[in-house]
């Protein structure tokens, strides 16, 4: 019984509010430090790619953003499901706080991908499997946000959003595989995204540092947004 109570202690917006501020501050600081280190490694330390020249350096933003975009959708669906199962107010708030950040990262991934594609592939957009599923992921985020925005009652909006997020999370792998299959059926291997098999250690370090920076940034921003939502609703 006592453990159960402790599990749900921070599920109350009231107790979570001050913790969120402390956590958000530290994460923001960590995000800045990781970003500085990551950008330093990415732009100054990592060697120039033999095939792609300097243009490849956009992957230090692109790849972590793409990781975050997919991961955040799962986290959002997780919180939505928690809110649906346990009827905790904070879970719904978390889900609605995550959505804009997730959509932002999806957009950044698409945008940097386009900028990277122009010098490398010679075109801003190809109907590649990964690009297409990322685009559909953006639509899923936007649909979730639009549904939540259209319902005024916060409780109903949270629960409706939860159903949509869960349905979307179940669909994401199906969409991904169907798009991949569609892609191989249609255009074959005209464009290959695979780079040289061995990645320089500095490139890998830079990418991991940037991924950590994006993680910390996401946590900080999401917690700040949760605080705003708590203030609005409570």
């Amino acid at each position, binding site marked *: 019984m006592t453990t159960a109570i402790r599990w749900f202690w921070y599920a109350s917006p009231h107790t979570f509010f001050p913790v969120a501020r402390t956590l958000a501050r530290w994460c923001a600081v960590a995000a800045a430090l990781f970003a500085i280190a990551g950008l330093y490694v990415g732009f100054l330390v990592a060697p120039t790619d033999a095939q792609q020249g300097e243009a490849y350096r956009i992957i230090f933003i692109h790849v972590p953003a793409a990781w975050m975009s997919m991961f955040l959708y799962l986290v959002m669906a997780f919180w939505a499901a928690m809110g*649906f199962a346990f009827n905790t107010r904070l879970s719904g708030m978390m889900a609605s706080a995550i959505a804009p950040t997730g959509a932002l990262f999806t957009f950044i991934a698409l945008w940097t991908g386009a900028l990277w594609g122009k010098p490398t592939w010679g075109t801003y957009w190809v109907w590649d499997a990964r690009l297409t599923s990322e685009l*559909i992921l953006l*639509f*899923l985020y*936007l*649909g979730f946000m*639009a*549904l939540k925005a*259209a*319902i005024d009652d916060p409780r*109903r909006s949270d*629960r*409706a959003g939860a*159903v*949509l997020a*869960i*349905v*979307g999370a*179940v*669909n994401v792998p*199906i*969409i991904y595989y*169907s*798009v991949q*299959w*569609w892609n191989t*059926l249609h255009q074959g291997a005209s464009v290959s995204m695979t780079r040289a098999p061995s990645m320089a250690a500095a490139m890998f370090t830079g990418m991991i540092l940037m991924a950590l920076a994006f993680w910390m940034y996401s946590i900080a921003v999401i917690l700040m947004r949760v605080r705003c939502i708590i203030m609005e609703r409570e």
Partner: protein
Amino acid sequence: MLGVARTLIYRDLLLAMRRRGDVATALLFFVIVASLFPLGVGAEPNLLRSIAPGVIWVAALLSAMLSLGRLFAADHADGTLEQILLGAAPAGVVALAKGFAHWLVSGLPLVAIAPVIALQYDLPSSLYGVLALSLLLGTPVLSMIGAIGAALTLGVRGGGVLLALLVLPLYVPVLILGAGSVEMAAAGLAPDGQLLLLGALLVFTAAFAPWAIAAALRISVE
């Protein structure tokens, strides 16, 4: 339980028969959308033949979506939906029955009329069977997934456009598999793989979508 489902389906079909105009509108929409494409891209037979499966499937998607708004709206407005959910029947069965009735009214006519559209696009007649079969397997999935969106947007402002935004991304796998099966057959390959996957999608949706629809309906009426 089966009795409830049968009664609900019969009732929805009866209501649809009393308002034949609504059913005809969705069907007409399908035909018109499919007929607009040659006017837009030109009447070159080879081009038409290659885009036909995709065009027919996109038109089917849009037409299925168009009729979703009416799925629960009338019942919600006059309180019938609340009474049905208060009844002893499990909400999942209610959702499945409503979805099935929607498919009978909006999906099945598309299966019947698709060969006529295929004729316009000069598809070889050997493909009619695959096209009809893919629509037969795919349109129920459209109805069930669409019903989730319809239940979620019930009584929400801007419901129609919102419904499209929610539902269309989820329709992507059905579109790919459905149009893909016809294209495979057109290329002289066996379309079995896509058709089987469509069937798997249908079974999966029929098993799990009712739960989501029921949850969404409860949220909407509370």
